[in-house]
């Protein structure tokens, strides 16, 4: 299971990096979304997979078969944060498109020389 997850996470990172390195601003933002998905999957995997009993003390449930509740709490927090940042980033990209008349990152580089 962990091996499979490693491939899934690796593929997400690969796609995210490919998108972030492209020139269109919208693709870059989608790339950051995929990057955070990859990171969340990684947290889940790092907590250990396979044990699926609720982490509540009950008769007949061994400690080793309980799911680790902490990674889920971490992922929930991280999802909310990445949602907020992505929303802000999208609005910024739209406003920047209106002002700068371009969504091509190549045309945004460098310094403006006022001389």
């Amino acid at each position, binding site marked *: 299971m962990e091996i499979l997850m490693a491939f899934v996470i690796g593929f997400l990172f690969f796609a995210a990096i490919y998108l*972030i390195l492209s020139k269109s*601003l919208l693709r*870059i933002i989608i790339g*950051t979304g995929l*990057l*955070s998905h*990859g*990171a*969340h999957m*990684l*947290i889940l995997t*790092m*907590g*250990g997979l396979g044990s699926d009993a609720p982490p509540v003390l009950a008769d007949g449930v061994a400690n080793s078969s309980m799911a680790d509740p*902490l*990674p889920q709490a*971490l992922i929930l*927090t*991280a999802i909310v*944060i*990445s949602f*907020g*940042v992505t929303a*802000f*980033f999208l609005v*910024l*990209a739209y*406003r*920047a498109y209106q*002002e*700068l008349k371009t969504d091509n*990152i190549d045309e*945004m580089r460098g*310094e*403006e020389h*006022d*001389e």
Partner: protein
Amino acid sequence: MMNSPLMPIIIPFAFAILLMFAPKQLRFQRAGALVGAILTVAASIWLLQKVHIDGIQVVTFGSWPVPYGITMVSDMVSILFVLTSSIITLFTIWYSFRTIGIAREQFFYYPGVLLMLVGVNGAFTTGDIFNLFVFFEVLLMASYLLSVLGGEKIQFRESIKYILVNVVSSALFVITVAMLYSVVGTLNMADIAQKVSDVNQPGILTAIAILFLVVFGLKAAIFPLFFWLPSSYSGPPIPVLALFGALLTKVGVYAITRTFTLFFTGDIAFTHTVLLYLSVATIVAGCIGALAVWDVKKIIIYNIIIAVGVILYGVATYNDTGLLGSMFYVVHDMLIKAALFFLVGIIVYITGQTNLKKMGGLMKRYPSLGWLYLIAAFSLAGIPPLSGFIGKMLLVKGGFEAEQFASGIWILLSSLIVLLSVIRIFVYAFWGKEQQLPPVKKTVYWQIWIPTAILVLLTVAYGVGADALMPYMTQAAEVLANPQLYIDAVKGGK
């Protein structure tokens, strides 16, 4: 009171919410922001005394026992950072009244500043590594707002790059925390420190240490990762720039200091040597940039990078003298960087431009500004009675004690380059032929001169009164050098 470490976080938070209810009421915005900042400074000073007398203060949310609940820990290191940040925010708010412009003031500028202080103070205080990530995001979100507020073209262009760099580094932060969790199985910083020393630093922990260095290095702008800083910081207006330059990189510096003195002490020969080389390279890169540019804002921006290298040098040498020097230097640097940005802001205001080549002869009409700038420049370089001296002397001494002679001498030489880079502004802007100046309001000039002058005097007092601050600084360096003190305080408390 039990919850004292939370005060510098909750007070600005409450005021930020309060200010959001009436964004268009200018007087309410200014008064509210000022009162909030003053109360935060007062609470920080009170907490400083409490930590000094009673030792490390610990709060656990919901009174869960220590490794399970989120803890907030106020030791001498964190409270010194918190106090300095709160003071700088107070002065920035005061300075903003005349410089930031009414349009920004009526569009959530002050709530943004206060919320950034919430994030910064929270990051300095938290005792939980994932909670550190959350507070990083709080301050970053506020900084995104501040960097783009106003909507000038250059702000949009630079904010996009700034946000992209930080989103990627945040993802990396989450990944690194996940890996650390899988190795030690805990997120509480004191608990991690204990478990790490129990497992005796295998290779995976060294790898995690370097990952943390990359994550925090991106925020702190250390050598290969500083590329985003000069252009991103040249976008926002001067008060925001002062706030960013003084506070944001220092959060990264604090995080590196904390993790490299608390967690990753098992393989010092590798991790701290890497840090040493990187800090020296950071100073080289900053020096080259500071000498190469002719834009007054950028000269000071490159000096931020130099200072980051100097502070981390003390952490890398990892002995009592070096750590003490780092603590002295970081507080000095935060204050003096804010003061220098304020001064440069005044110069830009009266000349109407940032290009140094087109300035000249300001000394005749603005002598008090010239003298103020000269004091600040000498202070940054570390001329003896002023504030930079004591920190730098201890850092170099620490370097020699660790038998790093070449890098110690380089720190000394870099002071000369720093002096050269900032004195260039003095020579070209204040001496030389008088230039045609655009008309400015004298009252506005004096209204922004006063907070700047008080901040410069504060740095002078910090240098002259270094002896009185010695007990506080020694206490801070002691916690950094002995992680056991921190662990005992957190785990022994409730």
